[in-house]
């Protein structure tokens, strides 16, 4: 269960891409250990929001406060972004060795632990391109975990995957959620959201339209836009 301790506080956040107002007065507080699923139509600002949280995008006004200044934020990308010239093991040890100053042996032991966690220890010496999409995304998750993050961001982690590989990635994510990791997940996988989320955030046109527990969010959405969105994506 999430604690009352805040992990991230976002107040009056505004972000423009030139003339385009991508995020409008975003206010959102995320507690430690909380699992938040962000959904909404494409172009609604979901990805931009989490990219602002870990500083991949700059914002023009408002504040993002990490309660602990040492907060380490991990990120899993839609396109995996593994380092193609390095083996799986080297992908996992690069950060810990260069940024955290760990020894090679320690970094490799830690990497192996997380590869086992995502159930692909046997792929350690392969290059990413020899792995399936689902395996690559699991390596990317393990790579983030190797940095011992307090918060893990997921930017549509299953959108680039073939349908038969989505489950294996969601299983790993569900598993992590059970461990009390603070997670912010941008996804259209509503089954996963129902099962894992403590809170749903619905965004449209750069604004947070509504938030709520999965139960009330799916059964009786308050806003019209949210209702329409859910109808569209749950229809099939």
């Amino acid at each position, binding site marked *: 269960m999430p604690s009352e301790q805040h992990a991230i506080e976002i107040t009056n956040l505004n972000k423009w891409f030139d003339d385009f107002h991508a995020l409008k007065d975003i206010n959102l507080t995320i507690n430690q250990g909380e699992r938040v699923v962000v959904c909404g139509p494409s172009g609604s600002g979901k990805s931009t929001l989490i990219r602002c949280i*870990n*500083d*991949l995008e700059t914002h023009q006004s408002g504040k993002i406060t990490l309660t602990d200044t040492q907060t*380490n*934020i*991990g*990120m899993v*990308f839609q*396109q995996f*972004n*593994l*380092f*193609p*010239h390095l083996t799986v093991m080297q992908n996992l040890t*690069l*950060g810990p060795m*260069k*940024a*955290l100053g760990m020894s090679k042996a320690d970094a490799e032991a830690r990497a192996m632990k997380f590869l086992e966690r995502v159930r692909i220890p046997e792929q350690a010496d392969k*290059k990413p391109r020899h792995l399936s999409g689902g395996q690559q995304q699991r390596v990317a998750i393990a*790579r*983030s975990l*190797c*940095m011992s993050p307090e918060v893990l961001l997921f930017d549509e982690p299953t959108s680039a995957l073939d349908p038969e590989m989505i489950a294996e990635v969601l299983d790993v994510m569900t598993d992590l959620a059970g461990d009390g990791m603070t997670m912010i997940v941008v996804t259209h996988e509503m089954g996963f959201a129902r099962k894992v989320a403590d809170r749903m955030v619905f965004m449209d046109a750069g604004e947070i339209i509504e938030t709520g527990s999965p139960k009330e969010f799916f059964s009786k959405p308050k806003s019209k836009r949210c209702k329409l969105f859910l109808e569209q994506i749950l229809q099939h």
Partner: protein
Amino acid sequence: MRLKNLCFLALPLLITGCASTSGTWGWYVINPNTPSGLANIKFLLNGFGATITLSIIAALLSMTIGMFVALPSISQNRWVRLPSRIYVEVIRAIPLLPMLFWVFYGLPVIFKSMGLNISIDPFWGAIITLAISDSAFTAEIYRSGIQSVSKGQTEAAKTVGLNYTQTMRYVILPQAIRRILPPLANQFIYIVKMSAFASVIGMQELTRRANELVVTEYRPLEIYSLLILEYLVLVLIISFGVRWLERKMDADESK
């Protein structure tokens, strides 16, 4: 391969077949069986050393200058990018020959007006001019190679805590170098050919020697034919090296 076979076939044909005819061809001027012909050939071939040395030093200098021009050109800040942009546009626009004239004949005048009595040595004048002229192209090769690595790689490096230098060194450059090396090697062929211009400021490389021999022997057809053959052999050897490099990179890639 076929091109090379053709050369080997054509060479003895030209030398033996045409040597006996009078008029058009007069291969005696570079006939290795006569002492004067042999001396002429030696004189011409001795230019290889200067051409190769000139090309290699100029290429290395160009690669170094190119790096310093390319690094600011990938900055997010347009004011940091601007000087590199101007350098590339200006240098790329100046043809090599006028630039050589300017450095060799023009620059000493400026030195003189400043009270300095510096004359430009043909060897170093040629090397520096070639290197500067070429550096605009190597800078562009570096820049496009680095920028061809996707933005996602930089972002991923940032999320695992790497700083700018570490990101460049461990993530971006190792990927960029595979895309930089083949065009860079290709550019070296270009330098070798452009080095012929050094002849006009008195640098005694392959072309200069051919010119000097033509003046004394009056046999431009034979001497320039040999000259072209000299460049052909040199460039084919480098081409072969470039192909080998590309194959090796492809092999590494598919590992």
